[in-house]
């Protein structure tokens, strides 16, 4: 009998979930978990209009995160000043109640950003297909799952059928070997990768990350890396499960219980890419050479090390990136040749599904301890669970003593949808994932950095090298 063809993790998960295929390369994939926030109300409205039911209510989980306030949470819904934002939170609660979907609402003790809470619950496990109304579902790839975001129409389809039609992507292996230097984190790794690939470089692909740097990352770091994979245009980023993955999942609310544990772990291990499997594309980044990174433009590939300078757009080899960089420098009010460390900032945001987990807050606290911020600086923990854990360690006291604001969980100033925005013309060092024009508020100027770099910026009033603070 011939040996089976070696397959990548993505191909195995695809094969495991394909109910049927059609056309050139489309399959109807079975969805293990679907996660939604307040955004896709159109999907629920559509279901009602069409008289359709939710097929598997236990396999969709709802999270209030985009529109919840990060202050005055004790006031509940009354604390939401904007009637439209309040209506978004109310609609999700109502839709969840009507359809029987579990909802981590505003007052839930485990409320938080969907991608942070899903991991904490142990909802996402190796080999799963996880979908949802948010591009950062890619975060879940950290567990060796295939997680990808879809629009409201496809959310509606998943609610009605527990399946989704998807075109099979090409595969790309991104190898990060070497060892990360002091002060260099998963955020810097992903910014370096996107800088290398360009923001459209991953379109049509699913990335699998391999290499010594990836293996050494904690689950939190892996989530940061997979989270921002979408910013390079790839639908999903994945990391094969290992001891770190298994140890993280053990004992969590949705994780397999003791009786099923061995079966589950054996299955998880079987999902990893086979020796000899091939990818359609390869890229490599030397982890030992990655510096703490900063974006200078309005796309995530417009990034450089903290020791660098704002580049001259005319020096860029790709004409499209050249045109984009010219516009970006104009918007960002920067000039070529300017030292990154000379850029003064007006505020700091530490939060978002990219960088608001306990490890992120610990990294920021290490820099903030015993120092004072000189610009308005806000910390928004990723979940109530993260917030409680940070408070148990005294991190909140470190931040408060340094002059940071310590808020309640939500997406906050990453999208600005709850009203937490960067005022026009202000420059923000932010641990979020998108530095697009107007993303943090119309006219806002965003520099993406790691949590430790954000803390260093808060203390310095300018973009600063975290390594000077360690």
């Amino acid at each position, binding site marked *: 009998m011939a040996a089976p063809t070696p397959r990548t993790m993505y191909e195995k998960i695809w094969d495991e979930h394909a109910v049927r295929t059609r056309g050139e390369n489309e399959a109807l994939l079975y969805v293990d978990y679907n996660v939604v926030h307040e*955004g896709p109300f159109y999907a629920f409205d559509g279901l009602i209009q069409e008289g359709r039911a939710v097929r598997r209510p236990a*396999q969709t989980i709802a999270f209030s995160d985009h529109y919840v306030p990060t202050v005055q949470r004790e006031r509940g819904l009354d604390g939401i000043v904007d009637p*439209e934002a309040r209506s978004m939170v109310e609609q999700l609660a109502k839709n969840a109640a009507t359809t029987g979907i579990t909802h981590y609402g505003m007052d839930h003790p485990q409320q938080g950003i969907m991608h942070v809470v899903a991991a904490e619950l142990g909802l996402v496990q190796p080999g799963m297909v996880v979908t949802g109304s948010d591009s950062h579902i890619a975060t879940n790839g950290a567990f060796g799952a295939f997680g990808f975001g879809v629009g409201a129409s496809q959310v509606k389809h998943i609610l009605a059928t527990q399946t989704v039609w998807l075109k099979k992507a090409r595969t790309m292996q991104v190898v990060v070997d070497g060892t990360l230097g002091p002060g260099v984190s998963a955020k810097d790794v992903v910014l370096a990768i996107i800088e290398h690939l360009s923001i459209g470089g991953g379109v049509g692909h699913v990335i699998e990350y391999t290499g010594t740097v990836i293996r050494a990352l904690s689950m939190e770091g892996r989530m940061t890396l997979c989270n921002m994979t979408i910013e390079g245009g790839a*639908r999903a980023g994945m990391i094969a499960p290992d001891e770190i993955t298994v140890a993280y999942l053990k004992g969590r609310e949705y994780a397999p*219980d003791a009786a099923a544990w061995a079966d*589950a772990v054996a*299955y998880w291990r079987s999902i990893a890419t086979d020796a000899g499997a091939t990818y359609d594309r390869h890229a490599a980044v030397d982890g030992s050479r990655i510096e703490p990174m900063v974006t200078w433009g309005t796309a995530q590939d417009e990034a450089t090390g903290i020791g660098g300078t704002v580049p001259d757009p005319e020096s860029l080899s790709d004409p499209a990136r050249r045109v984009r960089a010219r516009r970006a420098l104009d918007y960002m009010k920067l000039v070529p040749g300017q030292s990154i460390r000379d850029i003064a900032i007006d505020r700091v945001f530490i939060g978002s599904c990219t960088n608001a987990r306990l490890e992120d807050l610990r990294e920021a606290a290490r820099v903030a301890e015993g120092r004072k911020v000189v610009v308005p600086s806000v910390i928004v923990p990723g979940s109530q669970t993260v917030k409680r854990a940070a408070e148990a360690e005294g991190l909140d006291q470190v931040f408060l003593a340094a002059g940071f604001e310590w808020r309640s969980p939500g997406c906050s100033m990453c999208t600005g949808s709850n009203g937490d925005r960067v005022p026009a013309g202000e420059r923000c060092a932010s641990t979020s994932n998108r530095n697009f024009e107007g*993303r943090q508020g119309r006219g806002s100027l965003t520099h993406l950095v790691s949590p430790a770099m954000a803390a260093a910026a808060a203390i310095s009033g300018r973009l600063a090298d975290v390594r000077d603070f360690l």
Partner: protein
Amino acid sequence: MQPFTTLRAIAAPYFEADIDTDKIIPHRYLRKPLSAGYRNFLFYNERFTPEGTVKPDFVLHRPPYDRAQVLVAGRNFGGGSTREGAVYALADFGFRALIAPSFGDIFHANCLQNGVLPVVLPDAVIAGLAKHLVEQPGAEVTIDLPGQEVTMPDGSRHRFELDPVRKDQLLRGLDDIGITLTDAGLIEAFEAQYHRRLHWLGNGRT
């Protein structure tokens, strides 16, 4: 969903690379009901000042581009978030087709769910078309979906690729759910064996 067959229409040039979905529709408008109309949210920050005054120079405000039904864009158009509001806004403005060298994957799928045809052509072909449209405002292109061909204002013809199933759905104006549910039995059978095999999923909650 409105069927798409053949369209002859004015095309508007917006030939910049990497126009993300935040630029297509800022997040603050995604809380609006569809009944509000999404037309004016399209490219809001490009089209209106912070005070809400029209920026008359923006391409879609300059006649005859304001009547365009085809948008000619740069590579990686619609990268970024999952927000389907980006497509709702384009469709509500009147766009029935988009021509670009490449599209963000999620955005591309969202177009197909809403009867908006994403046409992929080579960068150089689109650069030439965009230049022509700037020089000859009001020039029309013809998009023939059955024949999978775009006819440029200069008469040149370019074939584009589209998955045959998606093509058929656009031609007939069908959305996915109805089609999928004709296979409800397949899904049920799959689901039963899947949950039996991976019996630990959800710790009994599924």
